């Protein structure tokens, strides 16, 4: 076992994969600066800077994948993926189906997501539910270094497109460049368990589509992903002091959802609270309610999500994004009714 930061875990897993699979190339804006460690080990042909042309280089990555490469294409922040959405929505996601299964797109789209460092509404979105909405895309969101590396390896081994989202509060390089900028005068609520942790000496893939039960509980089930998993764990600890046993599921993968684990846990507690940093309406939180209902599991349901455009002002931002406090309030409501 080794102890690595979240960002280094991703890089380490990528390096392991790159050293055994010469088809893997990295491309994106500024990647020679951002991924300098991989640049000096694997050379400039495999770490390529692109112009600020997301539509072109994401579109090109789709066919490069179809023609035999394994591109890891970086869209700096997921907010910017909107510019290149056609490549994902109408091409990467659909080619396998439209070709009758004759042609696959082994593409990894790597992108940073999430807020909590006061960067404003065009730089702090999550959008994983929006992406997972499209049939044909797998979407993964690790919450700790071990899963970050394991899911990257799994994404690279997948024969179909995977969107890999790394939360900026966990990835120190992103938080350093976009949040603090080298300042010691700003503080962000970084969950330490997510930003650094134990990882295996040699990476093995973390299966895509498998959630993790990160805390057992008998009274209610908190279902979450990314940074919010850590907010849930904190809330669960506080609930324990009040005599409430709250379990926490880390989804790890948005699509495909691990319906079995979700239904099993919710079936035990009969109370589910979804904590999702992505937008509330028409997204992951609603989908989770739907799959539980479809499975015939009856449960009380609540959710703590982002309802509106994320404000720039830190105070307003704190009120908008899921927080431990909001989870506690919502948990109380869930427990008060229908106990």
């Amino acid at each position, binding site marked *: 076992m080794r102890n690595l930061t979240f960002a280094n875990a991703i890089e380490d897993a990528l390096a392991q994969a*790159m050293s055994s699979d010469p088809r893997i190339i990295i491309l994106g804006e500024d990647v020679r*600066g951002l991924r*300098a460690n991989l640049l000096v080990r694997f050379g400039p042909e*495999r770490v390529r800077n692109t112009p*600020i042309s997301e539509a072109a280089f994401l579109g090109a990555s789709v066919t490069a994948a179809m023609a035999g490469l394994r591109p890891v294409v970086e869209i700096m922040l997921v*907010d910017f993926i909107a510019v290149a959405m056609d490549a994902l929505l109408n091409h990467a996601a659909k080619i396998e189906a439209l070709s009758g299964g004759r042609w696959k797109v082994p593409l990894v789209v790597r992108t940073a997501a999430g807020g909590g460092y006061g960067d*404003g509404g065009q730089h702090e979105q999550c959008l994983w539910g929006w992406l997972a909405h499209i049939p044909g895309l797998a979407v993964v969101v690790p919450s700790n270094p071990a899963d970050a590396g394991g899911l990257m390896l799994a994404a690279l081994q997948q024969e179909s497109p995977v969107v890999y989202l790394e939360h900026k509060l966990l990835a120190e390089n992103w938080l350093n460049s976009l949040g603090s900028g080298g300042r010691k005068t700003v503080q962000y609520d970084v969950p330490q368990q997510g930003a650094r942790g134990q990882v295996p000496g040699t990476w093995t893939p973390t299966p895509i589509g498998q959630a993790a039960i990160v805390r057992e509980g008998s009274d209610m089930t908190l279902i979450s992903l990314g940074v919010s998993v850590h907010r849930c764990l904190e809330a669960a600890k506080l609930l324990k002091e009040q005599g409430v046993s709250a379990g926490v599921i880390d989804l790890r993968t948005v699509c495909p959802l691990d319906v079995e684990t979700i239904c099993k846990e919710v079936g035990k507690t009969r109370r589910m609270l979804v904590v999702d940093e992505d937008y509330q309406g028409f997204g992951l939180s609603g989908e989770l309610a739907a799959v539980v209902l479809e499975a015939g599991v009856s449960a009380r349901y609540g959710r703590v999500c982002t309802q509106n455009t994320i404000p720039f002002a830190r105070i307003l931002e704190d009120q908008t994004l899921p927080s431990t406090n909001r989870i506690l309030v919502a948990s109380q409501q869930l427990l008060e009714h229908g106990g």
Partner: protein
Amino acid sequence: MDSWLVYRQMLRSRLFEEAVAVLWEHGLISGEMHLGTGEEATVAGVVLQLKDGDAMALDHRGTAALLMRGVDPYLLLREFLGQPDGLCNGMGGHMHLFAPEYLAASSGIVGASGPAAAGFALASQYLRPGAVSVAFFGEGATNQGMLLESLNLAAVWQLPVLFVCKDNAWEITTQFSSVSHSGLAERAHGFGMTAVDVDGSNVEAVWEAARKAIQLARQGGGPTFLHASCVHLHGHFLGDQLLRLADDPFSEMKTSTLPMMKSFLRRRGAPFGVRVHGIRHAMTIISQAPARKAIHKKDPLLAARMKLESYPEQLLELETAIQLEIQQVTESALSSMLAQEGNLS
């Protein structure tokens, strides 16, 4: 061009943004902060010629343009501090600034100002004949599809747009010339519009080029592409890693160069020669650090000031007045914040 008016606005913008930098350093402003220091001549040469009904589409670096257009610096500062009485009620921050009274809208998405300016111009064709719109963007944005598409749209509809490309040659750590072919003015010309190269650090040159372009647009002669070379005195954004590297090579080396050397020496990977090639690319980025510091020599403010130095008394009076204004704005923006915090506790 009134050199005094222009210098006054450039200096005001500079001092304002320098005050912003201090507040950011102190942690009072969160997130990123892209300053327009070094772009003042390009911005002033265009914006100071705008009139009522004209519109501005701005990028993530729009503070100088708004300030020169007439937006209250207090409102800008309060916005950056994330306060409810800021320009956008603390919702936007410096990358998302909106001033409907000036038809001025920003975007944090690179290239978005192209279509935005085209749309403003389209509306003016119907509703405000003779009015123009300006798009400000960096050279990096000129490889963004939506910007190129908007050049064609503006040309084919003869929209009254002035596309102003502020070219500092760098996209964060990527050199523009390494990811882009062909001259930009040449490219714009290919879309069917007048395109001119101008020294964006020379405010008179910008003014003259913009004057012609704005006149053409007001008369229904369609768009112009103004390619203005300039510098970014504070790098891409505050805390720019390359500037930090130049300021404090030792501690930055520890965090970036050591892991890089370790990775270079790792077993399994490319052959030695290819790795050396990789190192060379990494060094190209790192070796830019001192160059980023050296661009102060091209400070447009100093050039504009030089023209006025034969009137030292007037100059002193003007500079003192501007300093005082910015100081007062900063103090009052901060004092209401401190007062609020006092109320809370």
